[in-house]
């Protein structure tokens, strides 16, 4: 295990201590629980947006709490859901009367806990709505979208719903724009190596050097196909062949592209990837607007990358472009 940590079981809490020490003006925690993180600036009357999920995916999830994005986030252990009670505490802390929207990824444990939290919050008189990120085309076939995993594309839901919420609109509108994003984003990933959960001490699976798994999930869920590692351009082509027809994305569409590094893959390679995406979309007559290239949803030191496409309209473009300022994401 090649990790700069102390005791594996204290990694998550020590990471959180580091985050509060580094960003005291931006985030704080509630209920005396480090894992219940909220923005230091909860705005009266604004719809609150909360998310949550397992640790090990920074900047996901808590990294997007801040101006123009999210208001609160619960994190669990590495790749483990936080609890419904923790979500309830965050919900209570960020509700200022306008209700709270949960945006999170479609994973069994998370769904159940957010459902439970929503019921509990409802019992306390807080209006809660939920929208799931479920855009990994490799995780279930078209027609069975409800079974799909949520991966890096959730960034777009945070960004756009967060921007609209900042305009002080009602919960229904924020929910509706989040649903629009969810409906218009698709992702596919490729993994070149596994990662190690600190408490486990060794990778839960292995990918041989010079091999890859296309469609693998960010916790190592099985993908579409394992095979020899081929040239980046061919990988991009194969991924776009799955992504483009799924929505479908068509000639004349405007899309934002998110090239997401899974952790160990250097930015140099992400740009090699983007180059081919740009080339290919341009051939298909699809116009790229405001691409994002970097690490947005990682699996610790996993090597690999994902491509997300978001189909845009004028409203989404405006919200995508609006400023944001969180400990892990800044846009002017």
């Amino acid at each position: 295990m090649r990790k700069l940590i102390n005791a594996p079981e204290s990694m998550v809490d020590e990471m959180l201590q580091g985050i509060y020490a580094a960003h005291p003006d931006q985030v704080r925690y509630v209920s005396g629980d480090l894992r219940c993180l909220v923005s230091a600036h909860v705005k009266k009357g604004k719809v609150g947006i909360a998310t949550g999920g397992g640790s090990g995916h920074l900047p996901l999830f808590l990294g997007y709490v801040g101006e123009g994005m999210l208001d609160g986030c619960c994190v669990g252990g590495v790749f483990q859901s936080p609890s419904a009670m923790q979500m309830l505490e965050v919900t209570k802390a960020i509700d200022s009367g306008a209700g709270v929207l949960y945006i999170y990824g479609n994973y069994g444990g998370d769904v159940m806990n957010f459902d439970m939290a929503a019921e509990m919050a409802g019992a306390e008189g807080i209006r809660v709505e939920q929208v799931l990120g479920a855009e990994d085309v490799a995780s279930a076939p078209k027609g069975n979208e409800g079974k799909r995993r949520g991966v890096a594309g959730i960034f777009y839901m945070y960004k756009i719903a967060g921007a609209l919420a900042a305009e002080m609109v009602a919960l229904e509108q924020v929910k509706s724009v989040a649903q629009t994003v969810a409906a218009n984003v698709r992702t596919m990933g490729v993994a070149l190596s596994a990662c190690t959960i600190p408490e486990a001490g060794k990778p839960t699976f292995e990918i041989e050097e010079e091999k890859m798994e296309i469609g693998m999930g960010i916790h190592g869920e099985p993908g579409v196909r394992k095979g020899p590692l081929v040239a980046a351009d061919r990988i991009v082509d194969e991924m776009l062949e799955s992504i483009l027809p799924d929505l479908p994305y068509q000639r004349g569409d405007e899309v934002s592209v998110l090239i997401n590094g899974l952790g160990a893959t250097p930015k140099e390679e992400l740009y090699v990837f983007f180059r081919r995406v740009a080339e290919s979309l341009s051939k298909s007559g699809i116009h790229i607007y405001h691409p994002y290239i970097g690490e947005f949803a990682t699996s610790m030191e996993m090597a690999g990358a994902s491509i997300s496409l978001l189909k845009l309209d004028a409203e989404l473009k405006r919200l995508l472009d609006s400023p944001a300022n969180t400990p892990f994401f800044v846009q002017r």
Partner: protein
Amino acid sequence: MKALLTIEDIKLIFIRCSEIMNKNRQALLDLDAACGDGDLGLTMTKGFAAAAAAARNYSGNDAGKLFLAAGMAIAGSAPSTMGTLIASGFMRVGKEAAGREAMATVDCAAMMISFLDGIMARGKSKPGDKTIIDSLMPAAETLRQGENKPLAEAWADALEAAEQGVERARGMRAVHGRAAYYGDASIGKDDAGARVGMLIVKAFAEYVA
């Protein structure tokens, strides 16, 4: 032979359940690793340790409150799929059993039905989905059919049914959770959650034997 489970009995059953999970820790880790993320042995030992502690600390005389406290303890300490499902089950039992001070076989049958209802509502799942339901459901039905039998006999039958449920689940195709990503490849593999359901039944059966 017991004819009624008192509050104290129920507390001891939670403690036994925690012991059983500890004993099966490695087996659950291995089962979950084969088709999931391999954490079930950790979450179940943690969750039931918390449930046992909550039960031990409960000083009232309301079985409903006792189950609720145990459920909340599991929800807070083991927020995995299985932990949350079991927590939801016990919390539902807590609602249904509110005010009760002791449980006969018929009440145990009702408890198992509520437990299952809580799980199915939370998991949006049904029998045949290759989950914990597939060991609990046969146990619940057996308890209901034997609701006039003494506790020991009824729970022994229920355990047998749960064990058969585990066997039957093996041939099913997973449609929920991480195992679902394996699709047809899940057929023929044991379901870790079904085994957890059986172990919970086992705690009751061993205690009342």
